[in-house]
């Protein structure tokens, strides 16, 4: 289960083929594994290392730099409460306190039913709509204690299932590059001349 599934291996190969160097696919592939498993597993990192010909240590080294990657089981919904200046000015501390009370967990923890992980987060680029939070990286604006409670109710009841996919799924769609439209991707060392359309004036 925690290696990439056959279906995801096909997707992974498509993703790798889009880059002139395969290591560039590292972060997208770790995302893919997190989408599959809900968090990043050691087996998945080994699998990815194999696919892009690096060591597992290199995959872990890169992945652990980025905070969206979680290396332990995570709730179906990850609630990130922003605490940076604009949100803080508009009551982020009080919102976080309320969230902890409502969910019965401290920031950083997951509810016993495994549904919700709550954590403190940094600026979410929605500063005018403070205080904000994200559920699986989907924004909720001008969050009040009441709207937070409503959100939790909706998550528990499944009312938001179509809008908010489980933790790990980044977009509900993917980029597709149709084979008949794609330009052949080349390793940089194999390209020696400028593209066809550019008129290179002699230096």
């Amino acid at each position, binding site marked *: 289960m925690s290696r990439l599934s056959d279906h995801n291996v096909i997707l992974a190969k498509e993703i790798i083929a889009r880059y002139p160097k395969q290591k560039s696919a590292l*972060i997208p592939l770790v995302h893919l594994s997190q989408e599959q498993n809900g968090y990043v597993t050691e087996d998945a990192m080994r699998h990815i290392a194999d696919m892009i010909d690096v060591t597992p240590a290199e995959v872990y080294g890169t992945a652990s730099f980025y905070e969206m990657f979680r290396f332990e089981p995570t709730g179906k919904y990850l609630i990130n409460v922003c605490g940076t200046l604009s949100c803080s000015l508009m009551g982020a501390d009080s919102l976080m306190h309320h969230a902890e009370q409502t969910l019965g967990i401290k920031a950083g923890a997951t509810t016993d039913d495994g549904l919700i992980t709550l954590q403190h987060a*940094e600026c979410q*680029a*929605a500063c005018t709509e403070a205080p904000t939070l994200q559920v699986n990286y989907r924004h909720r*604006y001008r969050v009040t204690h009441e709207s937070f409670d409503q959100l939790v109710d909706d998550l528990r009841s499944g009312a938001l299932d179509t809008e908010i996919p489980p933790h790990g799924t980044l977009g509900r*769609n993917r980029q*597709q590059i149709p084979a008949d439209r794609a330009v052949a991707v080349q390793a940089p060392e194999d390209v020696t*001349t400028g593209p066809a359309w550019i008129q290179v004036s002699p230096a």
Partner: protein
Amino acid sequence: MTVESRVVSPYPWAPGFYPGDRPEIVTSRFQYEDGHTLDRYLATGGYEGLRAALAESPSDVHEVVKNSTLLGRGGAGFPAGVKWGFTPQGVWPRYLVVNGDESEPGTYKDRLLMECDPHQLIEGSLIASYAAGLSQGFLYIRGEMALAHERVAQALNDAYAAGYIGKNILGTDFSIDIVLHWGAGAYVVGEETALIESLEGERGMPRLKPPFFPAAVGLYGMPTIVNNVETLSNLPFIAREGSEAYTAIGTPTSPGTRMIAVSGHVKRPGVYEIVNGSTTFRDLIFGDDFAQGIRDGNELKAFVPGGGSAPWFLPDQLDIPFEGPAAGAAGSMLGSGAVMVMDSTTDIPAAALTLVQFYAHESCGKCVPCREGGTWLYRIVERIVAGHGTDADLETIFEVGQTICPGEMPHASSERLGLDAVPFPYKMTTICFVGPSAYAPIHSALTLFPEEFEALVTKRADRRPIPVTAEVPA
């Protein structure tokens, strides 16, 4: 004033955006709920700029962009056309990297541009690639922006299907792939060399300089143009309407418009497309067209003029125009177009703490001053805010700051304190600006509101020297 009672945007699909009686270069489609679709885009002049560009030679298009003096909107404000010219002759391939990693505290514009008008960004990317001879583009979007991903992915898929991206675009020789790349959560990746490292599958740590510009040595060591989302979103207009139509707006040194977010304790926090150079901070914070003044009838206490990295301004600086050199002379910078407003109820040390915490958390760990110094500053301020500080800690903040930013640190003038401004910029011992950014807010807060810190800390008893007669050896 409660959260609920604030004004809301007339366009719920563009939360926080407010149109005004101003030219709209990049936000013209925000009025449409379906502004992100290809149909709406084509119905409103979409891809006309690309058609116009393809009718000319790449070098002519480059010339038009140079003449428009379009300045980069990522924070550095470097002219885009000049940046493209730094690519070395005869070195191929060249790449495009679109910096959609918006994450500077207070900044909120690139996400709107990607969610509400993704085709405009794609068209801009195509025009840049055509002009600079770029053979593959990577659209790096901050990982935490799921909706932006979905909108851009859909737009890319539609644009591929319609023949705007890929092989032989619009029947010409011009061919390019644009790949959507997901970030994964690291502020420092907004720095362009860190962005490239991240795109290569590495830890997003800024590269050493020299070489100073990725245009010379960038992705995979090849010439690479890195442009911000807003910058590229201006290109369809410039290509369609010409550079003169663009320079007719704004000032000669800073033409066109730019997007500004005003947030915090104001009546109408919002994102506005403003005309460069003609707006003051007073307009932005108090103008009816903009944030409409301080909430609940409170007084303005201080504001951050250019994103969380910027030294703070006081009411003393309200009449400074929103323009780089003026802000610099007054001791700060405009950065990424983000104003954060604090009213008289603000607990200044606690407000500064959120920013110090942010930059300490976001340090990549490469440079010692940032990795160790940033966290140290955060620990000290956290302790002070919790009531466990001493007056020695206040000195230590400046001392640690000195190791990150040697020499005089820029700050605003204060009539109340009898302080003169120290102009921007600062010196730094780090590779990038994350380290200094951890110091700038606490330096401003402590310099401009020393009494709030002094009220929080315990004074040490004066040290009683032990009476000795012998000379201490040197």
